């Protein structure tokens, strides 16, 4: 009787899990393994895959575009993850105070992360145009003369200048993701027991010491989560590039995911694209492991 119940419970568990497991197998695990397998083949979708061993990977090492995309992606990731984490923490600390209209602010900061990245990209394109709002604002503030001193041609064609295109994309992404991570940090902050602050205060710790020795250490798991999600998201940046710059000007915004897309679906070098995908996955894995070690998790 008892044993019968255990069996039927297990059956039920499997039955409940089956839809998800099946989807995972069919749509995630199988494609991943298949992509890895394809990365050792030459495949154009029309003729059967032909085994080429490691030559896709060898080509990758020699391919200038791959290294450009790698450099751009790493630059993008480091910049975006550091800045968005710092900004998100800053916003979360502000939102944790007693401020009038706190909810309105929270909504305003969170809104970009529930907005489609395509819509955001289109709006930012209008901001970044040479005769767009950003330049009008900068000219109004007189900052444009400062920019001219740095050697940029004013008004700056933000998305069309080799030096500013990638940083412009980064700024947009920092803005659009910081709100989401702010919410995560807020949750982390609210998890810290108030009593610890009281104890610290009794011990004579000022606001800075409280932040440094109570808040920051206890936010470590949150930092880890925010950092990991940030790294994964940033390494895979694609839609903004696809919509706003197409990898240009002069490959200044060519990211690994965009290169992968053009190789796979414009030039139909599926094997080569799969090799890029495998490298990208490996890089993300290593970066996450490195971060884990750094955070001592």
């Amino acid at each position, binding site marked *: 009787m008892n044993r019968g119940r255990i069996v039927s419970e297990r059956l039920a568990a499997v039955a409940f899990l089956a839809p998800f497991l099946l989807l995972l197998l069919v749509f995630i695990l199988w494609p991943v393994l298949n992509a890895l397998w394809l990365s050792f083949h030459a495949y154009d979708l029309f003729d059967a895959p032909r085994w080429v061993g490691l030559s896709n990977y060898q080509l990758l090492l020699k391919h200038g575009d791959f290294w450009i995309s790698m450099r751009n992606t790493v630059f993008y990731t480091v910049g975006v993850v550091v800045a968005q984490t710092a900004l998100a923490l800053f916003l979360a600390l502000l939102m944790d105070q007693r401020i009038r209209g706190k909810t309105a602010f929270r909504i305003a900061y969170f809104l970009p992360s529930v907005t489609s990245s395509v819509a955001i990209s289109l709006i930012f394109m209008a901001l970044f145009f040479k*005769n767009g709002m950003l330049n009008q604002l900068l000219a109004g503030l007189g900052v444009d003369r400062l920019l001219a001193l740095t050697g940029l041609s004013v008004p700056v064609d933000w998305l069309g200048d080799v030096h500013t295109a990638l940083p412009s994309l980064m700024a947009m992404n920092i803005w659009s993701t910081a709100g989401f991570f702010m919410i995560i940090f807020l949750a982390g902050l609210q998890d810290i027991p108030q009593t610890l602050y009281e104890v610290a205060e009794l011990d004579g710790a000022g606001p800075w010491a409280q932040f440094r020795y109570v808040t920051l250490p206890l936010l470590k798991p949150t930092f880890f989560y925010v950092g990991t999600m940030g790294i994964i998201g940033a390494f895979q940046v694609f839609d903004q590039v696809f919509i706003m710059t197409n990898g240009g000007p002069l490959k200044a915004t060519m990211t690994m995911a965009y290169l992968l897309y053009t190789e796979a679906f*414009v030039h139909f070098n599926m094997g080569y694209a799969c090799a890029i995908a495998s490298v990208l996955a490996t890089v993300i894995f290593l970066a996450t492991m490195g971060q884990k070690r750094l955070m001592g998790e």
Partner: protein
Amino acid sequence: MPAFERLRHGILVILLVVLSACRSTDDSAGSKISIRFSGYAGNPAETSLMEKLVGDFNRSQGEIHARYEPIPGTYYPKVLTMLASGTAPDVLYLDILYFKPFLAKRKILRPLNDFLAQSSTRPEDFLPALVAAFSEGETVYGLPKDFNTLGLYYNRESFDRAGLAYPDETWDLTRFRQAAITLTHQDAGRKQAGFALAPDTPDRFLPIAEMFGARLFAQDGSCAIASPEGIRALDYYAGLKRVDHAAIFPSEVGSSFSGDAFGREDAAMAFEGSWLTPYLQTSFPRLPYGVSELPRGPAGRSNFLFTVAYVIPQGSKHPEAAWKLIEFLTSEAAQAQVTFALPSRTDVSRKYVAQHAEYLPILKAAAYATPYDFGPHGPRIVERLGVALQEVLLGVKTSERALQEAARDIDLLQQR
């Protein structure tokens, strides 16, 4: 048990949805032969005309029902993916630049000779260059839909203001450059450049290179664009922007292509095909513009033939029905309704130009224009040349170095 009941209801609902979905596809097909037809949805005038033509076709046919499925956005990635997965439509647009790459994959295109042999549609009725562009030897793979060449679109008002005579057939590149400089002005905060220059595509630069006497490919097939003439041509072209400050990039003023910057009067001249005419008429109806032939260069005239054909993929299950649709779409009656390009039938395009004089420069150029076709690696070659243009236009490299590097890469591509 209520939970069980709910589950059963849920399953029933899902089954119903699935079944009704099956029903509806059956309905539209009926006992008729159902075929699908796709083209890119670049141009609203074109999309609505195609909708109308396919509707006319369906009414004229008893047995065949055609469905028009325009593809927005990136057309070739989508089409190639559909071809590879066996879900491609029965009739497709194929741009001349992609004809040789498609032909290189032997299983994609279906020869049309058998259909043509039994049809009243005769290839001789079409502009010979267009039919030849989609043929290999005697085998015809596509029937041209229509064609375009580049014209010089100019803003009459800007010319009047600057006291310049409108461009005509006597114009050469020197005259064009002077006009671009004279037309560039800024008054009352409104800035207008002489010329809208697309920095990332070589289709405007290559004609200029040929006007200077340069050739993209030498007799032996190697890339010859880095010749002294080619370098001089790129110096000229990039100079419009970098030396004379008489040109803008469309992206600088928030336009997606030079015709749009021209329409918004951010530039007084642009090189565009006649696809721009319906665009200007709908988006900028009050713009006073004219069209003339591209200026001539030291080595004469040059232009590109941009053309698209209807093709039938090998995988089509109803090639006969697909051919019927192509016959209909390339018929004289259907071609007479084109507005965004010139009809591919010689007679119809002549008649058309007689009624619409602004298309005359576009037709004239067809006499000497060469197809926009660079072999099986065409799209990559265009992409690589685009990079070279950007390098020079953004001041990263000299014309000589950029073209030499591009020529070397293109030679490598060709050997692959």
